[in-house]
């Protein structure tokens, strides 16, 4: 459908084929562009290379920040970690984010069910053999009811937070049940390097879905600490940045921008709000030719005069 059909001002743009022409070699233009872009690409790649910071393995996490691993394990058991209290699509622990009155996250449903305490901590530890104290601790844990489990793990989490330097080794004495043993053995399991495999190949030989290890890693503080040091935090324009001084994804600037300003930067529903706003802006961008006012903006901005220049006497320069 033509624009004219939607406009009070009729679109009188004449057919391009009615204008006089001049020779124009499209193929030559494309080949020259290929050569120039090829040289530019090669030069940029040779001079600046590309970033490749090694992925954080669960073993390297355990080695670099053992206290964080223990704290994370306790939080998973207590049900207070990010993933354990997330809501859809992992569990029913919260309503999730809303877009105004619309609980879009909840509507998405729990379609990747993850029981953080059992699937991220207990099940991998159940594979460990020959450790009687761990076996006893797991039996005690599994025979207790949910309230008791939450009480032990919650108390241990609070004690770690209250300990000097949040060091699990300096935790005050208390009734933590089997949680300290479970958390300590979880750290040992992570240090051996076998935890990743236990989280990814539980149901299949091929490990191509990293959902569980990534949820576990992001439940800890270490990943975010490392990211913030690289200026990748959400409030550091991190979504469009990349490790090192590389340009990253500058085309995400608008999406990233909203996270830096209120009300988005302080809202519990920031993601839903930003996505909703970006959806509206994207629709406006795509259907710009049909939006009265906006579609006429270029004529009034006058930048077109730099493209289609006119002579001093006002006649067309082309």
């Amino acid at each position, binding site marked *: 459908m*033509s624009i004219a059909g939607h406009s009070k001002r009729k679109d009188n743009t*004449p057919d*391009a*084929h*009615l*204008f*006089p*022409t001049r020779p*124009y*070699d499209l193929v030559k233009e*494309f080949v020259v*562009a290929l050569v*120039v*872009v*090829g040289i*530019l*690409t090669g030069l940029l*790649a040779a001079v600046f*290379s*590309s*970033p*490749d910071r*090694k*992925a*954080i393995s669960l073993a390297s996490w355990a080695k670099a920040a053992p206290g964080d691993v223990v704290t994370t394990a306790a939080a998973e058991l207590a049900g207070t970690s990010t993933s354990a209290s*997330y809501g*859809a699509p992992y569990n029913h622990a919260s309503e999730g984010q809303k*877009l105004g009155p619309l609980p*879009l996250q*909840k*509507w*998405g*449903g729990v*379609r*990747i069910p993850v029981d953080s305490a059992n699937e991220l901590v207990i099940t991998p530890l159940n594979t460990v053999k020959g450790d009687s104290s761990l076996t006893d601790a797991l039996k005690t844990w599994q025979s207790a009811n949910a309230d008791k489990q939450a009480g032990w793990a919650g108390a241990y989490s609070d004690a770690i937070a209250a300990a000097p330097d949040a060091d699990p080794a300096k935790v005050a004495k208390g009734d933590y049940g089997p949680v300290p043993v479970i958390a300590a053995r979880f750290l040992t399991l992570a240090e051996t390097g076998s935890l990743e495999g236990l989280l990814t190949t539980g149901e299949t030989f091929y490990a*191509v*879905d*990293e*959902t569980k290890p990534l949820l576990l890693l992001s439940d800890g503080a270490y*990943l975010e600490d*490392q*990211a913030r040091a690289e200026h990748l935090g959400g409030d550091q324009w*991190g979504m469009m940045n990349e*490790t090192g001084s590389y340009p990253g*994804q*500058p*085309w*995400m600037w608008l999406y990233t921008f909203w996270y830096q300003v209120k009300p988005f930067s302080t809202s519990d*529903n920031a*993601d839903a709000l930003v*996505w909703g706003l970006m959806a509206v802006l994207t629709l406006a961008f795509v259907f*710009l030719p049909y939006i009265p006012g906006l579609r*006429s903006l*270029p004529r009034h901005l006058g*930048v*077109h005069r730099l*493209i*289609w220049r006119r002579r001093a006497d006002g006649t*067309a320069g*082309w």
Partner: protein
Amino acid sequence: MTTHKAPTESSWTVRLRNRLSRTVPPGQLLPDSQPVYVRSWIYVFGVATLAALMYVLVSGLVLTIKGSEWWHTSSLGHFVNSTHLWSVELFFLFMVLHLWGSFFMAAWRGRRALTWITGAVAFIGSIGTAFTGYLSQSNFDSQWISTQAKDGLNSVGIGAEFNVLNTGQMLLWHVMLLPVILGVLVVLHIVLVRRHGVVPPFDAVPPAQTETDRVVPERSAVAADERASMSAGQK
């Protein structure tokens, strides 16, 4: 002796040929001339975007052939990855310049709204494709970007369908699904550009021409169809 029946409008082949001719009339697919007002550097960025896309595809193809871990362990692989990264950066730079140029020219005028829409959707599709590329790097960037991006997708209820923590799914979207969709959009965009030609300046009036010496592609194509129909009917 049997006589060979002339093709008619009922022929699927004739109908397809006529449809193609109507879409891009002969001579318009690769014209050797352009309207006189096409005389600015801004027009270069469309073809520059295409050229960069070629390098994105070729470097991506090499990375695909060698496998997702190759570039972490081989210096040649790392260089190929670098060309992939920088060709993507150039691709977006040229595309954004092309986009702004098209905006300032209000390039949707004169029945070109669909040209704008296909370009805009291709731009958004390119962002999605690049995003899945960052998720498929299997390094620290991928870990951080995926764990952050999941919150946005989950907040609007689509995180399970498009699970950014599932590396296998993201890699397939990146190397197959999105490039195919993007490829179709780019081809459609170029066909539409060629069909309608470059948008004339605001308020430009073409030199007066008689009805008979005008070359209006759509009309020409329709006339060709009519001639073909008449010809078939006469036979």
